[in-house]
């Protein structure tokens, strides 16, 4: 076959061509390429990629970056007749940077290879930059590179949610690189809040410049550049202006209460406070505030050890995001759960009648009574009024009935159905799951069985029960929407620096009780919550009198096991007819729920536009005044 021969010739030509090209590159030009790639002639300098920005729901920048300059040491650019020590000494002499700091920073870095840039000084001062530039030829191997620092437009707002950043530690370095990410010692990573949760989106990819240097360490030309890729931007569901207003209100009340408590020993001094507003139809978190907080700028350039210890040791625990990272007994807000169980399991209805004779409830064979918060017997009340009055006696009875009819776990089961005792999986790190005690838990942890008294205690949200404000917001959402709640989400979507959508946080139903709990039950609970706010006997009536939007809510005052003061809660939703938002306010050791109601009211004022936000961008509601 003639053609096969021709093919063989072509094949030979192709392979001879490949072989000669390999010889040309590797034998005849090998020395040149080797010099190019070898450490003493080639250097790979870092090009930093800025971290992604964070925007609020209106598109306002919350966290951005500002330009700074870092000083790096390239060991492989140091000429043979000099040394690292010599250059660091020279630098210390010339600049304001101390010798000790330079040597410390040099020694602290775990260096993988000789060619790796070592971060000597972050955030170089202008004066030092000028000195280094002027003495360029005396300081081979030292290079100044652009970098970015976090720029917090409002460093004292949305602090916990944003979270802080800090230098990567060894554990993180190992873990992240194992997961396939590329981190280097000295990199800044998210340590809390969204900065941590979305680290791998926010973090950019460092670029590099491969250069040829001469024997004195001076750059001759650039051989290749790997472009840096900035991190992706977060767009939040948080309404930053509402957040600011809510934090201001929270702080004002918190400080007033602390001041008053200082003057009056009888009063309680709150330790912390939290406010949480969530869109019921989507799970979007509009406000997430926790007090006390700190200034994010402390962390922007890397926090000093003293500052960090101050913060982490403070008794008020300012680093704690109280909306998700700490759990408290919910007190009477839990009556919504007890009420659900009673209606579903015991056949209680809105008009079922109860009797509170003398503000005391006795268990059989037990002489110490369980008391109501109101020392006077409230007489005859139906179920809805019992919610509105938050009458403990009625709920003790229901709790005990549930225990008798079923067992101690029945009420716990309902609590779990509402999502209590497990994480909401909100997109924030370190979320607490809280605790819903039951027989098994008690046996394992307290080495005791479940007593009727435990059920009675649990029925009003006391005992070992612990809930986070987010869980309570979820509970309110379920009641308000009559059966379901969406998973709370701080971040709405993630976009690339060019604005392309990277990831959208889908709305996911987190809790769905529409099959298990009847609409009638929810309607009754809602009526009770409506009366809490709108009937003159309701526990939150005073602060919402004649309010233009119909509000529904529930107060809670939870005793704490220690000699500290009660935790105070308000949890509600609005508008009553067509619920939009769930609002939760917590005062840690705040004493009485009465203090939480005005805070919730003011947040709603801003939300509904009765009080103007910074730029008057509040929602405007038109309503007919009934009076």
């Amino acid at each position: 076959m003639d053609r096969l021969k021709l093919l063989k010739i072509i094949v030979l030509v192709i392979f001879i061509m490949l072989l000669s090209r390999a010889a040309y590159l590797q034998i005849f030009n090998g020395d040149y390429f080797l010099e190019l790639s070898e450490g003493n002639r080639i250097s790979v300098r870092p090009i930093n990629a800025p971290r992604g920005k964070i925007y609020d729901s209106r598109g306002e920048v919350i966290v951005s970056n500002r330009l700074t300059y870092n000083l790096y040491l390239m060991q492989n650019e140091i000429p043979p007749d000099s040394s690292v020590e010599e250059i660091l000494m020279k630098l210390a002499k010339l600049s304001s940077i101390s010798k000790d700091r330079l040597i410390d920073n040099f020694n602290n870095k775990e260096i993988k290879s000789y060619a790796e840039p070592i971060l000597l000084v972050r955030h170089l001062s202008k004066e030092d930059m000028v000195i280094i530039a002027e003495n360029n030829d005396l300081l081979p191997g030292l290079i100044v590179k652009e970098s970015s620092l976090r720029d917090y437009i409002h460093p004292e707002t949305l602090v916990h949610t944003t979270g802080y950043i800090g230098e990567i530690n060894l554990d993180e370095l190992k873990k992240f690189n194992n997961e396939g990410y590329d981190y280097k010692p000295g990199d800044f990573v998210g340590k809390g809040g969204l900065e941590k949760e979305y680290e791998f989106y926010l973090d950019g990819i460092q670029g590099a410049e491969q250069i040829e240097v001469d024997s004195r360490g001076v750059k001759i030309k650039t051989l290749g550049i790997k472009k840096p890729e900035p991190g992706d931007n977060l767009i939040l569901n948080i309404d930053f202006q509402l957040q600011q207003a809510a934090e201001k209100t929270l702080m004002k009340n918190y400080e007033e209460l602390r001041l008053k408590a200082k003057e009056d020993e009888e009063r309680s001094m709150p330790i912390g406070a939290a406010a949480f507003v969530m869109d019921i139809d989507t799970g979007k978190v509009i406000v997430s505030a926790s007090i006390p907080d700190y200034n994010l700028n402390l962390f922007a350039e890397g926090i000093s050890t003293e500052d960090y210890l101050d913060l982490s040791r403070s008794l008020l625990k300012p680093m704690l995001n109280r909306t998700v990272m700490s759990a408290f007994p919910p007190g009477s807000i839990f009556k919504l759960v007890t009420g659900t169980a009673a209606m579903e399991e015991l056949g209680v209805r809105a008009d079922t009648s109860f009797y509170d004779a003398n503000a005391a409830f006795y268990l059989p064979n037990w002489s110490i009574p369980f008391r109501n918060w109101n020392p006077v017997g409230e007489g005859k009340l139906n179920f809805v009024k019992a919610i509105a009055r938050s009458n403990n006696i009625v709920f003790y009875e229901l709790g005990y009935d549930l225990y008798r009819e079923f067992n101690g776990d029945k009420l716990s089961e309902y609590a779990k159905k509402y999502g209590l005792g497990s994480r909401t999986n909100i997109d924030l790190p370190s979320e607490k799951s809280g605790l819903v005690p039951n027989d098994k838990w008690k046996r394992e942890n307290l080495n005791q069985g479940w007593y009727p008294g435990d059920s009675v205690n649990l029925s009003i949200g006391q005992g070992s029960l612990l809930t986070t404000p987010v869980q309570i917001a979820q509970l309110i959402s379920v009641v308000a929407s009559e059966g379901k709640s969406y998973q709370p989400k701080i971040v709405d979507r993630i976009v690339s620096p060019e604005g392309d959508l990277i990831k959208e946080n889908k709305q996911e139903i987190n809790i769905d009780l529409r099959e298990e709990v009847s609409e009638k039950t929810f309607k009754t609970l809602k009526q009770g919550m409506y009366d809490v706010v709108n009937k003159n006997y309701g526990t939150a009536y005073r602060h919402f009198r004649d309010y233009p939007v119909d509000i529904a809510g529930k107060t809670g005052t939870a005793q704490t096991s220690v000699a500290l003061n009660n935790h105070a809660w308000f949890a509600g939703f609005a508008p009553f007819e067509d619920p939009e938002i769930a609002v939760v306010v917590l005062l840690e050791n705040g004493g009485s729920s009465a203090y939480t109601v005005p805070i919730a009211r003011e947040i709603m004022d801003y939300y509904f536009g009765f009080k103007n936000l910074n730029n008057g961008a509040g929602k405007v509601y038109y309503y007919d005044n009934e009076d």
Partner: protein
Amino acid sequence: MNWNKKFLHYLNYNVPLTVILLILIGFLAISSAVEINQVDSNALVFMQKQAVSVILGLLLVFIIQAFDYRIFKEYSPIIYLLMLALLGITLFLGRTVAGGKRWLSIGPVNFQTAELAKIMLVLVLAAVIDNNSDDMGYLKGMFWPSVIAFIPFVLVILQNDLGTALVLFFIYFVMLFAGGGNIKYMAVVFGGGFLIIILIISAHLLIDTPLPFLHEYQLNRLIVFVNPDIDPYGSGYNIIQSKIALGSGRIFGRGLFSGTQNQLNFLPEKHTDFIFSVIGEEFGFFGSGIVILLFLFLIWQFLNIASDARDRYGYLVVIGITAMFLFHILENIGMTMGIMPITGIPLPFISYGGTFMLISLMAVGIVININLRKNKLMF
């Protein structure tokens, strides 16, 4: 089974031995490229995946021996329809990775259907050319093979996979030539086509006319290929880095795990497309020369097997498979040396990647099958 012994009598042992040698070299190179020597690398996952594809591929080689290769001719219409269906499904349901090849996911298995299409095209085209052998000197005979090749070519182009499309074209071209296609016509049609493409690209560059079939980045690669210094930071980067890697290996290389271009991650896609640069950097001309010669040796064996094939169909199939490998070798090695434009075409038996490893071993299995049945008197 005594026919096994009879068959083995005809086996050209050079083929399996060369292939196994190349695979072993590949393992060594990949282990360096995925930084198996570093504590925190997840290199083992890569090695395991590659090992699984090799084992599956070798199993395929054995399984294929159970059939007579002429069964492919018999079923070629079905193979052809299956190929079109696979490419069509991938086009609509497949997902792309990094703007390149499309993958079809079946359960946990991801598969690049375009790779399978290469072999399927060989099997089908061989049948069509064989059936038209009397007319191959005329346009009439060249018509059907051209139509048969054109449809999958377009489907692959639509998948935005220029590299595979070029492989398909090369297979078609070589098979047409080896199958007795009229050289005059081929010169006119393909020479003319080439001129038209040059014209379209020039027009795009000079007066900004639209560019059919080609994405801007693909054109950029072509331009940069012609002159890498135009854009040393962007598209030219890969070429420069790869040349530095290869060249710096000099005669005996910098040693396994010691290539700085490789270990410092200046080489792009080093465990897949640029694996040859790793070999060149760490084993020098010695290593790259051996790999090139091994490939030459393998291709040579293939051509011998083709000429010994017991029928024209077997001959054409081996030629098609040879063309596939030849193009992959030329394009991949040429790309790393800066004498071919950059496309994402893997180096057979050496590059990391399950799909093409399977396909390559399947192709070797078919060649061996034809080799084993070369004696016409046996049946």
